[in-house]
């Protein structure tokens, strides 16, 4: 049986899916790291405080908003 991706559309689709999965996991991991540092003010408790929980739920979206702003703003500085 031929296991080379070039001749196997199912394998190709699988590899693309796995690549997507890896990229999504990487995005989640990076944001979780950043948001953990930003939102946890003290040592971890047996549950998140209301403010920690609120911070975490907003963090990813606000980071994305900021990212768009940065891209737009920094585009002015080309050349």
């Amino acid at each position, binding site marked *: *049986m031929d*296991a080379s991706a070039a001749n196997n559309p199912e394998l190709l689709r699988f*590899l693309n899916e796995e690549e997507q999965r890896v990229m999504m*996991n990487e995005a*989640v*991991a990076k*944001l979780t790291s950043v*948001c953990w540092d930003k939102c946890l003010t003290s040592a971890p408790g047996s549950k998140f405080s209301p403010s920690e929980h609120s911070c975490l739920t907003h*963090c*990813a979206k606000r980071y994305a908003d900021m990212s768009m702003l940065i891209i737009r703003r920094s585009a002015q500085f080309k050349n």
Partner: protein
Amino acid sequence: MDFSSPSPPMGSGQSPEALMEQVQAQLAQAYMEELVETLRGKCFDKCIAKPGSSLSSGESSCVSRCVDRYMEATGIIRRSLFSQQR
């Protein structure tokens, strides 16, 4: 990523199914290793203020809570990244 596990080299006559399973297993292992390394850094920062001659019970329970909370935070971030509402 560590690909030095004792399994047959890829594409050496394996079926596509076996190849896909092998790829998924290695990716899952790489993910776990990266997660554990992250947990080490985060929980050391939050829980071990000044390393002493052993881990106190306070430090140990902090580390357990740290792992639980970090996994919870991962879920929160994942859900907010992939939900449609603003």
